[in-house]
């Protein structure tokens, strides 16, 4: 079996330095998540809110796509909930 090429190797220190060297682009991330949710909505002809209410946390969820969709939607909810966390609101008020 062909292993990953040695030229692709990177040390843990190099990896962590690369990852920590830039700031996350929140808008880009939200856009990607919305695109992903939209793809599931098109595939299953159902809005994510409805899917989440009917399927998430039930045995019906036990399909790879549905587990992914639910996780993706939870991520979407987490981003918007974090916008209204006490810390963020206080920071906005104080400036």
């Amino acid at each position: 079996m062909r292993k990953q090429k040695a030229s692709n190797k990177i040390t843990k220190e190099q990896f962590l330095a690369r990852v920590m060297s830039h700031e996350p682009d929140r808008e880009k991330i939200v856009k990607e998540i919305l695109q992903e949710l939209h793809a599931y909505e098109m595939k299953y002809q159902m809005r994510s809110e409805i899917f989440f209410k009917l399927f998430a946390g039930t045995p019906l969820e036990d399909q790879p796509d549905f587990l992914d969709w639910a996780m993706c939607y939870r991520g979407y909810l987490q981003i918007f909930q974090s916008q209204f966390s006490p810390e963020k609101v206080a920071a906005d008020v104080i400036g």
Partner: protein
Amino acid sequence: MLSDKLKKWLIANRAWEIYVFLQRLPGPEIDLISSLDEQIERAVFAGNLGLHMHWPSMNKNLSIREKYAFLQNRLQIDFYSYVLTEIDEQVIIRADSAPHHERDYRNKLLTNFPYHLHDEKERICSFSGNLEDFVELIVPYFRQK
């Protein structure tokens, strides 16, 4: 509450572990480091990491999804779904932590509930919950023609 920077550091360390585990597989047709880098950013805000790898010449896809929680400066995997499929999305084997099964296909209690594996015959089996073990299980499928 943890700062975004500390969260990112913890997620990056987990992503490195994932990278190391995946070294047991052939190189996928993506830049794994760049994909992990992008997914770490997403995980800082959305709390979950999703990595999708393809090996068209071997007719394989691997999807890794993990949702994280942060407790006392530590990262905990709150939920995961690891899926090996063929290119047409036909599932080969998969593992997840959805609490929908208590017993395996022989009616024995799962050893690490809610962690379980759906084997290639779609039977429910006990599973450790470790990605490293899942990768170990799927290595033979990459040797098949």
